[in-house]
Structures are given as C-alpha cells and as structure tokens.
C-alpha cells in the first residue's frame, strides 16, 4: 500500500496536453481553519489535488465539505482573519502562491487563475453596466482605454454567444436572464485567457435546459483555450458529463479520487457509494431510497478517526481511532489503478466486494 501524496492523473507527472512543466496547479496538504466564537472550525484538513492544462477536475462534496473554501484559498480571496492557513502549499506552475506577496498574487488572480461564481446575480454589480464590468479586467490588468476595453467586452460577449452583444453591452445585469448572466460571468473569467478556471457551482442556480447550454459552452471554451478547469459541484450528474477526474470531499478531506467512469462504476469509498446509491434509480421505483444515515459532522468537532465513521455502514474499531490516508487503489492482483485513491481502511472490501 503506497500512500499517494498527490492525486496525479497517471504515473507520469505530465497530464494530457501539458506544456512540459508538470501540473498547472498543485495543492499540497492544504489546511484551512476559521476562528469562531464556538471554537476553531477546521474547514479543510489536508487536501491534495492537481490540475493540468486542458484537464477538468471535479471536486464533489456536500455543503460544508470544504470544497469552496479550498477554491477560495487557491484564489487568495479567503477572509483572513478569521480564516487561517496553518499549513500546506499551493503551487502554481511550481511556485508556492502562499509565499507570494500581495502584489504578486494580484497579478496571477484574474490573469492566470480566474473564478466563476455560483450566483451570477449577486456576483455582478447591479449599478454598473455589464460592458463596464467586463472591460474592467482589461483596464486594470492591461491598462487599456475605456473605449478599447468596451470593444474587447463586446468581443467577449460574442464569444460566449450573447446575441446582439453590441446593443446589449450597456445593459445592466438585471436586464439579462439567469443563463445570460452566467455567460457574462464566464466571459469575465475568460477575459484575460487564464490558464486555469475555477468554477464554483456554475450552474446550480440555473434550469436544466439552460444548465446544459452553459456547461457545453464551458467545455467548448476550455478545449479552445486549453485551460485547466476545476469544477466544484454537489451534482453527481453534472460531474459525469464534463469531468476527466473526480475528487470527492468529506469534512475537509479528499476521501476518494478517480477517473470519472471508474468512480461511478466502482466506488472505492463507502461515502461515494452512499451518494451514488441515494440517487433515485428507475429499477428502485416504489422502494425506499438508500439514505446515508445521520448528518455531516460539525466542523468544530470532527469525529476522531475517519470523519465518516458515525455514518458509515462498514465502520469498525480502527475507523474510530485511525485517520485513513488516501492510498493508491489497486486491482485484485495488485496492479495499480491509475489515478485512483481512497481514504478508507476497508477500500479493498468496498471495491472488490
């Protein structure tokens, strides 16, 4: 059993379509905690993942699993204090961003790493026209004039397929529909052609038909620019559609990593299994749904051992005392399954039955 320190996609350090310098983003043993009146909330407890250019990593988890906090730590938009990063590294092209100065990080933010937020209506400024907000990227980072920035903004709106971009560039956010607003958010993230985009629940607020449009657009643009994409979501369906690899988070830790197809066909962690089983399926109509019993843990008092143990149907004594490390998952004959890891003491039983 080898302990894997990263969630490397393949044994080789290069991801698909790499420019030869290893993964684009490499998060190593990241911890984030918040000081509150009720004690220290340990939101992220040792997360490792990496993304290469052109690759999509989906981070899957319920609310409070630390998936968004990890993203905020990468972007450097965490409120500190009360937030604190006691240990860990966030390497972007090999450089640790946590050791950079504020100005250095600012140069990366938006230009190299951009973020798409969940709720487009509350993320856009209601008193500024969308053209002005889109152009801000060019004015601040590239020093363009207002006029040139606006021309670029129109160009961007065209690229995310907003009809009649020229006429609508001076419209305000409330004049757009939900799907269009989300397109503007995507356009804003794309503005400076970043290397990596972090999309935090980009379609949760949208209807299914619009969600399909937006996800397709995102996937298309990603291929076009060969960007890395971190997709944060709680929707198992959305993940299956676009991701290359998946990291499942629970209570601030990654409990399983796998290429997308394998996660769905053979989960190696009881939590993943439970999540998949709780989706209503056709052949179970009229029967009781499988439900993971209990509630996600309170992050001020994470259970000792495996955080999932109070809810786990397979929990044994060792689960209540020892924290399971994310280990390489192997085939029955011992050959390693590339990119697969599980943080469960009994992953063998889980995956091999």
């Amino acid at each position, binding site marked *: 059993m080898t302990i894997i320190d990263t969630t490397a996609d393949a044994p080789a350090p290069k991801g698909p379509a790499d420019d030869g310098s290893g993964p684009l983003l490499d998060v190593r043993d990241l911890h984030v905690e918040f000081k509150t009146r009720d004690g220290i909330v340990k939101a992220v407890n040792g997360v490792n993942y990496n993304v290469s250019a052109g690759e999509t990593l989906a981070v899957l988890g*319920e*609310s409070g699993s630390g998936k968004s906090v990890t993203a905020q730590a990468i972007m450097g938009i965490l409120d500190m204090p009360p937030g604190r990063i006691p240990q860990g590294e966030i390497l972007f092209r090999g450089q640790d961003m946590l050791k950079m100065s504020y100005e250095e990080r600012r140069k990366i933010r938006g230009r190299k790493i951009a973020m798409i937020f969940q709720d487009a209506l509350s993320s856009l400024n209601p008193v500024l026209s969308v053209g002005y907000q889109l152009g801000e990227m060019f004015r601040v980072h590239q020093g363009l004039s207002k006029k040139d920035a606006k021309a670029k903004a129109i160009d961007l709106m065209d690229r995310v397929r907003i009809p009649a971009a020229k006429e609508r560039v001076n419209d305000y956010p409330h004049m757009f*529909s*939900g*799907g*269009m607003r989300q397109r503007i958010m995507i356009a804003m993230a794309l503005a400076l052609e970043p290397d990596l985009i972090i999309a935090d629940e980009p379609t949760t607020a949208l*209807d*299914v*038909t*619009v*969600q*399909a*449009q937006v*996800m*397709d657009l995102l996937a298309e643009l990603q291929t076009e620019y060969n960007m890395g994409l971190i997709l944060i979501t*709680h*929707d*198992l*369906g*959305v*993940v*299956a*559609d676009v991701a290359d690899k998946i990291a499942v988070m629970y209570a601030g830790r990654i409990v399983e990593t796998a290429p*997308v*197809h394998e996660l*769905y*066909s053979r989960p190696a962690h009881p939590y993943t299994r*439970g*999540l*998949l089983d*709780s*989706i*209503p*399926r*056709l*052949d*179970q*109509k*009229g*029967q*009781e*749904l*499988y*439900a*993971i*019993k209990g*509630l*996600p843990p309170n992050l001020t008092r994470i259970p000792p051992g495996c955080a999932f143990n109070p809810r786990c149907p397979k929990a044994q004594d060792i689960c209540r005392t020892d924290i399971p490390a994310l280990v390489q998952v192997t085939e029955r004959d011992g050959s390693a399954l590339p990119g697969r890891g599980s943080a469960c003491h009994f992953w063998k039983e889980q995956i091999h039955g």
Partner: protein
Amino acid sequence: MAEFKKSGEAVADATPRTTGVDKVDAATETAAVAAVEKPAGRGEPILQVRNLVKHFPLTQGILFKKQVGAVKAVDGISFDLYQGETLGIVGESGCGKSTVAKLLMTLETATAGEVFFKGQDITKLSGRALKAVRRNIQMVFQDPYTSLNPRMTVGDIIGETFEIHPEVAPKGERRRKVQDLLDVVGLNPEYINRYPHQFSGGQRQRIGIARGLALNPEIIICDEPVSALDVSVQAQVINLMEKLQDEFNLSYLFIAHDLSIVRHISDRVGVMYLGKMAEIGTDEQIYDHPTHPYTQALLSAVPVPDPSAREGRERIILTGDVPSPANPPSGCRFRTRCWKAEAKCAEEVPLLAVPERFKGQDTPAAHESACHFAEEKDVVGAV
C-alpha cells in the same frame, strides 16, 4: 396508476378529454408493477383543477394606475389529483409551478377557473367555509431556513396550527400531539422547546413536514421540498414523505425541478411550460414515452449521473431562454424554441389531449400532450 384498472378498458377510453388522466397504458405488466403496493385507490378525484388562470396585472402610472398588460403566470391549467397518489409537476423556473401551488392553497385568488376539492369549488369560498377547506390542504415549503420563524420554538411552530383550528386538538392535548408529530417525522419529541437554528437543514424540513401534517390534511402540496437539502439528506426526507403517504393515505402535489426525484416519488407527472401544461401522464408515459418536444428536451438535458448510460443518448439542447410570460408567443408557447415548429404552431394553440395519431392505440404514447406534431422519441431511459 395504470395498473389499478383492467387493461381491457384501455382501448375504449380514448376520446380526447381535457381532464381525465386515468387512462390505462399498455405497459401494465412492465416496470410499473413495482409500484403496485402504492395505495392509489382510484375513484373520484379528491382535487379537480379546471382551466385555472392567474394573471398578475402590470400597471403604469402613479396616481392613475392603468393596466398595460398582464404576466400570465398560469394560463388555463386542468388536472386531477386522486386520493393517495402523488402528482409531480415539473418545469423550469418561471413556468408557473409555484403559482399553481399558491392558487391551490388559496393564498392567491385565481383570475378565472375552478378548483374543486371533493366537488366544492374552493376559489369561490370565503370565511368559515374556506378555513375548513384549508385544513385539508396543507403545504410544505421549499426553504426550511426561511419558512420557520426563528423566534418561535418548534413546539410553537407546530402548535400554532392548533390555535387556528382548535377543533383538531383540545388545549390540554396540544403539547402531547406536537410531540407525537415530532416522533412521526423522526425527530426526538424532547426537542419540542428548541429553536429552528438548533437543527440542520434536513431536520428543519422534517419540522416543516410535521407542521404540514398537524391538521391531518388530505392533500399536501410540496413546493420543492428537498431542493435546498444536501444529496445525502434528500433521500432521507423523500423516504419519510413516502412513509407518511402510506401511513396517512395522503395525496401529494409534488413540485420540483429534479426530474429523477419526481420520477421516484410520483404516480403521475405533469410537465409545465410558460403557464400551460405541456404534457401529463403516468411517470412511465412521460419519462419513457414523451411525445411533447419540450418534455423530450427537458429529459435529454438532465445530467445523468452514470457516464455509461450517457454515451448512447441523444441530447437536445434548446436555444435561448424561456420567453417572458407577460408577452408569450402566439399559438404554441414552445414554438420559439422548438425544432419542429411550423406555421401552424404560430396560429393555433395546441390543446392538451391525446394526440390524433395515437388515439385508440394501446401504447404508452397515448397520453395527453399539447403538441400539433406529437411523436414519440426515446431520449433518455436513464432518469
């Protein structure tokens, strides 16, 4: 559901009707058998909705307000709800699902149309008679974080219903009754003095359900009851709702946008688009044999949480957004986004009826669909 009728009746019952949905589909012996034990005892519908309309006026001017138009939130909807069954309503945001819920609760006054509860038109009622009917139709709300008063204890929240309807529980018994209710929904009866913030989302939704159950209603209208909950907790709440339905023989009107959950819990499903019912039928008819293009597009757009099932399926991605309900397209409302639209669609409003071509046929496609060019198209099979 279909299996409660003899299949022999199926062929005879093929005349177009605006309301009846108790047609028999051919697939009596197939997958639907799994749900036979559901207590969907047919007979008289408990709730009949006929041509229900709700227009919200748009006005202009400050002193002299004049109406310049109307948001046609619900524009002529008819359906039946039977004792002990679950009718799922799906559709995109803005299609009028929640307005339907409010109209059935008589929280909004209908512009036109009737809602018959056991033969009595509740849109015409007021005062004492309305209060008596409201006891029988209760609601579970979407967001358990905002639908419970943070300054009231759980006991007060659930017990408040008895103050409005004192005949249900005499004063001395109320506390015990609330504790019973907490027990029924799977909460510790000792939590009666706690406040909502002391509970998690799933537990709060259980409190909301207990409040809905307090008056022993016959119908519970659930407006997106699980969409605010985490995936692992959703299943718990859905299971609880199914258990309660069996126990108290409740009828649910289940409004949601999650198609897989609606399929799981519903006996019949109605698909709404821009204030109108596009298609209605049993869960199998809608999900496996949709004939309305909108239903087909909706089903194909659902992200399927199983990569292998996804590979073979055809995806229909609709262009554009839902038109404004203040100014809906002429004729068929879906025509602006429909790939089949022809001149006829702009002129004639398609009626919700069994399509001509399937009439008299013993196929699951023979259910009501409001499309001029209704045809079957197998789009998913995975939801």
